[in-house]
């Protein structure tokens, strides 16, 4: 009770000293808070970018590295993806689903192709007939590109590139057992009058024939050259490989794409860090759109560094300044301390009174500094958005720029500097205010305890004589 009453009266009746301490704390807090708010906004912006890029991590071969190191042909095996390793990595608790797939091709002489190009807005289908030297019309093979995955709904569908217009996806058991099902394009179905339930007969290079049941017809982001793309199961392609290359075990286990879908986009960095060491070769890597992320966050990192420096410099200087002003504060009240000690007041309670007074001033300085730094941070934010968050050209030689094989669904979300600039916001939230409050209290108590601890060493007689 005495601490509260006397602490309050001391503040109210000695306004000059209070104002001096307040002014210093206000400046220190405002600078500190501006730095923290900017830092926090940058962290939130990074979270935004990461969320926009999605929760996918792709296990890839690093062709860029292989080219730059001029690997010999036989060494290219080092780039091969391992399904066993992928299954091991998929045990990581943050993995929700692992997708892997393989591709191959089959042929037909009977079916009409669904591949075309456009001329004057008209579709012109590739012709698979030609006239030989003797003037005979020869029918060439029509090629079909097979994509075999390990899940009932292929990634291209779950990512929204394609959608079913008829039929349904196979069951997971059919996928697992390698049942000869197929999803075909609407173009192919229309060209050949196929409906779901029909069988397509195709053959491979060894002339092994396969009857595939059409379970679904799809449409979506299609280009003319993709009309013959078929979706089958990974196990079906594995069986095809067994038929075609019975002695080549590596071919049977071959995988050309592995993607891990995580539960939370914010888990990707930790996931990559934990699992990179499990990769079989230095020519493999886990790609979490790292290059995109790094390119987009580069300007933010620079500002973050400056904000961090500001925070630490002000924090350090703040501690020294607060130690100095509290020392003056204690020295000015030495007599009062002696008087209280001679009355039997404990040193600890005297220290508590002074801490209470400093915290009261600090609290007012805190509230006003929050308001002030909100305004100043808004200016800094505008500057960042106008001058730093501007579109830059993609980093040259980015390995994400390299695509091999056929069309790959982009599993990473789209985000650019405009999105980041639109999202960039320094407005306060409860979490930031709480964080600042804790920093404020910690700074004040820590810096005050150093000079206040001198009171604990006071000799009451000496203090009264001084």
């Amino acid at each position, binding site marked *: 009770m005495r601490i509260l009453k006397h602490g309050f009266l001391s503040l109210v009746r000695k306004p000059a000293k209070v104002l001096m301490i307040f002014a210093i704390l206000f400046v220190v807090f405002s600078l500190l808070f501006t730095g923290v708010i900017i830092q926090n906004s940058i962290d939130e912006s990074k979270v935004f970018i990461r969320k926009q890029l999605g929760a996918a991590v792709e296990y890839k071969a690093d062709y860029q590295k292989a080219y730059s190191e001029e690997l010999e042909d036989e060494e290219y095996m080092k780039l091969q993806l391992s399904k066993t390793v992928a299954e091991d990595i998929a045990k990581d608790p943050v993995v929700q689903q692992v997708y892997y797939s393989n591709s191959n091709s089959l042929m037909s002489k009977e079916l009409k192709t669904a591949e075309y190009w456009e001329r004057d807005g008209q579709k012109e289908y590739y012709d698979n007939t030609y006239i030989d030297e003797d003037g005979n019309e020869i029918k060439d093979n029509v090629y079909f590109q097979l994509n075999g995955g390990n899940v009932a709904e292929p990634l291209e569908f779950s990512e929204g590139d394609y959608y079913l217009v008829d039929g349904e996806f196979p069951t997971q058991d059919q996928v697992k057992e390698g049942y000869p099902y197929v999803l075909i394009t609407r173009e192919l179905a229309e060209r050949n009058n196929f409906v779901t339930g029909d069988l397509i007969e195709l053959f491979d290079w060894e002339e092994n024939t396969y009857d595939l049941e059409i379970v679904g017809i799809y449409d979506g982001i299609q280009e003319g050259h993709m009309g013959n793309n078929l979706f089958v199961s990974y196990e079906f392609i594995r069986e095809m490989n067994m038929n075609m290359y019975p002695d080549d075990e590596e071919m049977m286990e071959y995988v050309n794409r592995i993607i891990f879908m995580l539960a939370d986009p914010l888990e990707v960095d930790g996931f990559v860090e934990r699992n990179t060491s499990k990769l079989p070769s230095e020519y493999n890597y886990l790609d979490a759109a790292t290059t995109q992320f790094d390119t987009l966050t580069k300007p933010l990192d620079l500002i973050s560094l400056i904000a961090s420096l500001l925070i630490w410099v002000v924090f350090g200087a703040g501690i020294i300044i607060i130690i100095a002003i509290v020392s003056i504060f204690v020295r000015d009240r030495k007599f009062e301390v002696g008087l209280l000690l001679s009355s039997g007041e404990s040193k600890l309670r005297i220290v508590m009174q002074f801490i209470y007074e400093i915290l009261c001033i600090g609290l007012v300085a805190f509230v006003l500094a929050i308001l002030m730094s909100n305004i100043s941070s808004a200016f800094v934010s505008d500057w960042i958005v106008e001058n730093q968050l501007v579109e830059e050209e993609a980093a040259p030689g980015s390995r994400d720029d390299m695509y091999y094989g056929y069309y790959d669904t982009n599993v990473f979300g789209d985000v650019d500097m405009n999105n980041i600039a639109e999202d960039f916001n320094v407005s306060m939230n409860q979490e930031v205010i709480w964080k600042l409050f804790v920093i404020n209290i910690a700074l004040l108590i820590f810096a005050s305890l150093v000079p206040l601890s001198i009171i604990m060493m006071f000799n*009451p007689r000496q203090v009264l004589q001084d």
Partner: protein
Amino acid sequence: MAQEKEIQFELKDISYSYIDGGKKRVILNGLSYAFEKGKFYTILGPSGSGKSTLLALASALDKPESGRIEYEGQDIQKIGFTKYRRNCMAIIFQKYNLTDYLNGVENVESSFYITDKKSPPNRKELSYKILSSVGIVQSKADRRVNKLSGGEQQRVAIARALAKDVSLVFGDEPTGALDTATSHEVIELFKRLSKEYGKTIILVTHSDEVAASSDIALRLHEGKLEEMKGNA
């Protein structure tokens, strides 16, 4: 049959010295004395004789080199210096020693907080009453202490000591900064404290006039206390 003396406070073989210019200077040398309850004592002695040191030791603001100080038969070191200062004694200084950002009544009221006894709910009214008993009216009691005269400030300091409700009151030249008339009034107050409230008053003073007003005047000579007269 002679009535047995009731000892309030006792100094037992107290010694104290300090180093001055490389030489050991003995201030108190095996000093012993027993102070009776309810008596008004004064301690006289020339400057540098160790009066203030004696008072600092008696009020536990400093520690003796050797010897014991007992309050109602209990070693004050065992009571605990802070606890002893808080619950057993009060001290009044020459320079009043009031808290400058508090007014008169708030200074007195503070005594009710710095104690292990339960603080009365009507402490403010009690403080006004005590101030009134030492001649400070409410309008003055409500003034910041630096707006009061020296005599008024000393009265507030005495009222604060009274509010502590302890039976032992020390004074370190409490009239030293006052004019003769005010000094006389303050001494009368101390006499009243001793007679009406049964408090043991021990004042250190230079003044023979103050000493003459006390029940027992003591002289500090060569580190020991000697009784000059006894009016009890």
